[in-house]
């Protein structure tokens, strides 16, 4: 009996328990609602199904979650500019490819790869800007990123001359849709590649360890010989690059740069992914796998909400409540209160037991 209890306790104490539990919960709700949820079919030579849709659409959130996890871990603050940076990267890429002020381009002004890399670098530039403000000037992360949260979208509008720039060039659509002859959506490959590169980077170098160390105590790490500022800067830079990649994928899906709508509300989604992944928003230790599972869970929630007839404008209500619930559960104050209550209960029981024993002795 007690061994079962212990085993359950062991499982619930595991790091990935919370994200996997949430994921299974969401999938179960979907399964109960419609039995066709897990069906995967091949249609016109490409994979088709709700599950594939979730994995495909969740790509941007997963890519953002990779960067966001590092930022949260290193600085105990979140980068709220990721959504706007996505839109800026998309606008930059489309403007470079189509030329300034061109509304719709069928032929490109420069090689497609160059434009895309330009867009990603633009994201990296934004990340570097945030990084300098946070690491070198010691400004609270959220205030520093608030600047680009507003400005990046506005700069994107200026780059696009206040219009939606369309790239009507077939290969540009490959990234967000399908490469002819490949049944799996391209975005999944890109996500896998980003995750693989970052994981190798964290595992093969000591960067991952350094990030956790700086996140736990920046001063102590600095004294023990880690360049805290540089580590912090690198994390923001990676986050910006990730936002750039996500922006290019999002732009490729609709083969245009819609500054007002690309990456809208994605900052919330990426932070939610990190929180759902069991990572503490107070920084320190992190689990990349948890964040990625969290990202797909968010997409599953979004898809479920949309299927239930909730509009994209209304969906944030539910997500905001989930964020607050997760963070409230994590809150040290609440935990201390709960532990205090348990301790009081135990003490009361003990006192009652003693009183009882005392009575018996008499």
């Amino acid at each position, binding site marked *: 009996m007690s061994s079962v209890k212990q085993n359950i306790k062991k499982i619930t104490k595991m790091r990935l328990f919370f994200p996997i539990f949430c994921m299974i919960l969401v999938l179960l709700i979907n399964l109960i609602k419609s039995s066709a949820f897990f069906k995967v079919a091949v249609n016109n030579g490409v994979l088709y199904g709700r599950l594939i849709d979730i994995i495909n659409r969740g790509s941007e959130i997963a890519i953002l979650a990779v960067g966001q996890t590092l930022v949260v871990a290193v600085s105990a603050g979140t980068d709220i500019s990721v959504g706007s940076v996505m839109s800026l990267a998309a606008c930059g890429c489309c403007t470079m490819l189509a030329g300034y002020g061109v509304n719709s381009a069928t032929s490109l002004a420069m090689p497609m790869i160059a434009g895309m890399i330009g867009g990603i670098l633009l994201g990296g530039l934004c990340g570097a800007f945030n990084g300098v403000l946070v690491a070198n000037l010691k400004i609270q992360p959220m205030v520093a990123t608030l600047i680009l949260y507003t400005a990046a979208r506005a700069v994107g509008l200026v780059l696009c001359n206040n219009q939606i720039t369309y790239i009507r060039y077939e290969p540009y659509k490959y990234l967000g849709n399908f490469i002819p002859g490949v049944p799996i959506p391209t975005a999944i490959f890109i996500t896998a590649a980003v995750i693989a590169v970052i994981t190798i980077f964290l595992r093969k170098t000591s960067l991952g360890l350094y990030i956790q160390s700086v996140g736990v105590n920046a001063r102590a790490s600095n004294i023990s010989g880690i360049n805290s500022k540089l580590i912090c800067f690198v994390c923001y830079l990676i986050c910006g690059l990730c936002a750039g990649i996500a922006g290019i994928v999002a732009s490729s899906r609709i083969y245009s740069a819609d500054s007002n709508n690309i990456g809208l509300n994605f900052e919330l989604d990426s932070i939610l992914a990190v929180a759902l992944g069991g990572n503490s928003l107070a920084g320190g230790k992190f689990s990349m796998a948890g964040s990625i599972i969290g990202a797909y869970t968010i997409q599953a929630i979004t898809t479920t909400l949309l299927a239930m007839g909730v509009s994209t404008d209304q969906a944030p209500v539910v997500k*905001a409540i989930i964020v607050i619930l997760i963070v409230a559960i994590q809150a040290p104050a609440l935990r201390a209160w709960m532990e205090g209550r348990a301790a009081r209960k135990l003490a009361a029981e003990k006192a009652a037991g003693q009183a009882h024993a005392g009575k018996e002795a008499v």
Partner: protein
Amino acid sequence: MERKKSLKGSMNGNTVLIFITVALFIAMYAAGCIIYSDKGFSHFQTFLNLLITNAGLICVTCGMTIVMLTGGIDISVGSLIAMDCMILSFGMSMKGLPCIPLIIFVLVIGLVFGLVQGFLVGYLQIQPFIVTMSGLFFARGMTAVICTKQISITKKDSPLFYSWANAKINLPAFLGYKNSRGKTLVPFIRPTVIIALIVVVLVFIMLKYTKFGRTLYAVGGNEVSASMMGLNVKRTKLMAYVMSSFLCSIGAICYCLNTMSGSVQQALGFEMNAIASSVIGGTLLTGGVGNVIGSLFGVFINGTIRTLVTTNGKLLSSWANIATAALLCFFIVLQSIFAYVKDRRKA
């Protein structure tokens, strides 16, 4: 020698920040008067229009300053305005409800919203940014839940509300000027300006002369020592967020009187304007320093940028956002440098 020392003592970093703000406002306004003199920028009415269009922002910035004094931040204000405006316009246009109960309802919503946020920040000690960011998305989503269309309030829906929105309060005639046809135009303000100015005065008095106001500064300056002094830090934080959301609701009513409409995309990025105004006005992001008079000048600078961009006519409206963000960045960096210098001097 003695006098020089005291002068140096009074000219610390924060006074310098406010001095820069006022100088910047005067410089910008003067530049506007010179560049756009043909477009009537130099008339007194332009300045009054600045007050009229930014009445809502002034109320919201006062609330933001209170929260920032405690070392927190409230980025839910823009969405809360959208939600309040939607409630007002939806209630009046679609449901035909009278405006006074609706206004009271909106104010109550502000209080409840602030209570929830304040509880989460003060008592559960969650980061203010996470709490208010959830509030931001929650309120924006609720706006869409109420109605996804753009609703305008017309005279038919609520004659009382309409008459408030269009009421002109004339200033003394000697401040007027003659237009090209020789007719004297008397400068005027709207009732929203009076609401905003009353809010500024009340908040100024509260911060300077009441126990609660001084507690706000103490909590923002050093939370630990404030709590050691026996001040109730948790309750103070809770009250700060309640006040912010309540003032934001008052601001929303002013905003709605100006725009006479409600939509999901309304007041997008308004939190940025409020935070920028507060920071430009000399409120430190770390808390403990700042006052509403500085914030008022922050709003003026913010409004002047917008007026300059719209007066030009050729520039995209997003340039105003970029300029505000750049100015915010400049002042944040300036604050950071002052803090660094202060630390060095101590060491």
